[in-house]
């Protein structure tokens, strides 16, 4: 009798260990997925100063926007945790998006070979960033589902697995979709 109980306990323990390990695997997959994103983010950080320099010469009325981009870049580079990076990089994306709209007003700039090349490189990076984000978000969803489904959620709660954020364009996208507010005062 005692043997049966012991065997049952051992089986349960191994089962719990299995669940714990699978949660760790999911968490690591998500972190590795973010490494792919990081590669692209670093390249974007390298590209931004060149872009700002080029635009500065032509678009004299955009000093404020360029300052915003530079600040967003500095903040993004200082970020250490994944959550911080997601927040600051989203701001940088939004700022760069703003630049894309404003340069429409400067035909000379749009004819500049150097600028065109930089812009092409930037859109290359952003395409790759979108792809990497897709993988990262898929991994995050899998992890979040993993820690919330029964019975893994009991282990997750006791061992500090918490719900993680996705890298989506949340705020940035709504900013883009809303028409700009114009006030006359």
């Amino acid at each position, binding site marked *: 009798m005692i043997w049966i109980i012991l065997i049952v306990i051992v089986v349960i323990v191994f089962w719990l260990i299995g669940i714990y390990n699978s949660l760790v695997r999911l968490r690591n*997959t998500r972190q*590795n*997925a973010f490494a*792919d994103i990081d590669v692209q983010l670093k390249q974007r950080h390298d590209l931004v100063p060149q872009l700002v320099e080029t635009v500065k010469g032509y678009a004299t009325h955009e000093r404020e926007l360029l300052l915003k981009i530079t600040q967003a870049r500095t903040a993004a580079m200082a970020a250490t945790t994944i959550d911080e990076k997601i927040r600051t990089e989203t701001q940088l994306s939004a700022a760069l998006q703003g630049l894309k709209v404003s340069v429409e007003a400067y035909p000379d700039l749009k004819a500049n070979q150097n600028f065109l090349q930089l812009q092409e490189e930037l859109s*290359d990076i952003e*395409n*790759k960033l979108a*792809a*990497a984000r*897709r*993988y990262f978000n898929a*991994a995050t969803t899998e992890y979040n589902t993993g820690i919330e489904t029964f019975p893994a959620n009991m282990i997750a709660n006791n061992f500090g697995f918490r719900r993680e954020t996705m890298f989506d364009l949340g705020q940035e996208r709504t900013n883009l979709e809303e028409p700009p507010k114009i006030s006359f005062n």
Partner: protein
Amino acid sequence: MTYVGIQTQIRRNNFNSILLIVTFPLVLLGMVYAFLFFTAQQKDPQLINSTFTNVIPFVLIGTSLWFLIAWFFHNSMIRMATGSKPLERIDNKRVYNLIENLCISRGMKIPQIYIIEDDSLNAFASGINDSTYSVSLSRGIIEKLDDDELEGVIAHELSHIRNRDVRLMIISIIFVGIFAFIAEMAFRSLRFGAFSRGRGKGNGAIILVAIVISAVCYLIAILLRFGISRSREYMADAGAAEMTRKPYALANALRKIDQDPLIEAVQRRDIAQLFIENPQPEEKKFSFSNLFSTHPPIQKRIELLDQFA
């Protein structure tokens, strides 16, 4: 037909790969034993058994050597058979971008990229592990397809890699190659034997044995082709549709490929089965080998993709 998901497909392919590696030496030893048994001068089981045990190490060492060489050099062999060359990033940024984006969105390692200098439209994937996986595209397919269509084709090839189809195919190609070699040797020695010794006493038996062995080889080759899931092309199409979310683009690409898939450099049937569509001229008349053709009809694949859209 039962539903087969991608995870099931991967597991099944891994299992088949291991099964092939395990059963192949056994089949080969069985053939050696049969050969010894039927060609022995006196039918003394003990003598046959002892010769057999003496031969075992040579057979095993020989095949593992062959297998290792093929395992490490299959890439250059296939490249020679198809005439493909490495494609540099500078030469074609568009292809690199498409492949990199697809790989990144799946968290895959980026495979090597090769180009076949041929105006026809075709492509294939090969390799056995992360460092040897490669995708080869013909010059024609790169130039004649638009971005979405080419992306679909590349996603199809990446799906083959992801499903572990390529590894299984390479292993089967190596094994079938060894059998083909043995059959060839049997026929050669038969011919030379007939010339040098005239019509000797044991010749009838040797002829019989050689024919039996080559028949077994052929049977095994056929079984291997069947053992390898024939649904793999459909699976890869579905995988590509899921990766790109543009099934119609792949369907369009297949329609274009269907016009002109012939790669003149490819003459070997075993290499031909790697391609997205058969690169060899199809025999119009009814032939035995077409019964065991390696590619499903392209029309059916297009129909299935159109259902997705």
